[in-house]
């Protein structure tokens, strides 16, 4: 078999296997129309590939599947660095710290009693100040009234 222009003979195997780029493919098409030898060569190649495609694909005799096992599980450090685990751990630590630092009931009662007495004392001081202001005003009014009577 001899090609009419062997210097420009395309790579027919790459052509049949769809490995040529667009330009090379177009040039091969042009060459093919004018070269009966290459037509025959490509024909045999296609026949071979067609025959290869008749090979029957077999079903796998047993499906492959894996179960969760220690081997497949992530390492402890992978778990620690996973976002879900880290968030959960953070919440757990916060709860523990809060529990450890929470004051006892007696401390709370004493603090409440102290706060109430402070508020009561503050109220008493304000009321006392108010009474003193009223006394001063009463005395001023009484003086004004007495002066007015005396001037008549």
């Amino acid at each position, binding site marked *: 078999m001899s090609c009419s222009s062997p210097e420009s003979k395309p790579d027919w195997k790459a052509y049949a296997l769809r490995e040529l780029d667009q330009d090379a493919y177009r040039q091969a098409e042009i060459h093919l129309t004018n070269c009966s030898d290459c037509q025959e060569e490509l024909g045999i190649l296609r026949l071979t590939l067609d*025959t290869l495609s008749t090979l029957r694909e*077999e079903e796998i005799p047993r499906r*492959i599947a894996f179960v969760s096992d220690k081997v497949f599980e992530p390492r402890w450090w992978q778990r620690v660095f996973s976002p879900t685990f880290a968030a959960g751990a953070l919440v757990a630590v916060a709860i523990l710290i809060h529990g450890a630092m929470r004051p006892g009931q007696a401390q709370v009662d004493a603090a409440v009693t102290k706060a109430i007495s402070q508020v009561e004392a503050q109220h008493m001081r304000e009321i006392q100040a108010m009474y003193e202001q009223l006394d001063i005003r009463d005395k001023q009014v009484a003086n004004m009234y007495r002066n007015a009577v005396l001037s008549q």
Partner: protein
Amino acid sequence: MALAKPGYSRIVDPGPTFSAPTASLRTEPQLIFREVEDPDLIAKARRGDVEAYNLLVSRWEKRVYNYLLRLVSNREDALDVSQDVFLKAYQSLPKLDDPARFSGWLFRIAHNEAFSLLRRKRPETELAGEPRPPELSPRLLPMELSLAVETALNRLNADQREAVLLKVYQGFKFEEMAEILECPVSTVKSRLYTALDLLKTTLAPMQKAALRGES
């Protein structure tokens, strides 16, 4: 309404974005099913999701098994090696740089495992000798043709056979094959082209005979 299958996520198609020609005609949103992509499954498997990995295995096991079967020429071995391949792939998933190139990466593992087995079994294979070509009738049936192809493939050496398997049956590009086989593209082409030259001398006449038988 269609039911969601395992491994499929449901997304809502909002319909076309262009305005409909008639104002009264409204496009109802359609429910469509998008297959979970391999990279999504790989990401889940990397986080320890075994079920996601099983789904990935179910997509690839037949292809890997058939590739291995043609390489090692023994069903039991092919199945054992397939299991090893998927186990190794699971353990090596964190090392996979680009999940989009999973297929080439998986076949590289399969190639390494298969050739490791072939090296171990070499004396036994050599004792078994060359496979005998089947006795074929002039008018070939599809089953006989398939058998003839199997025999012709077995007469190639392992490198040539593998090149044919990766290109013709698995559809990899030359560059991908070079990555799987860890050799230059020129070597890949050389193996494949030699194999095709050998195959065409035996297979093309058979196919011609089969076609003549049909007509």
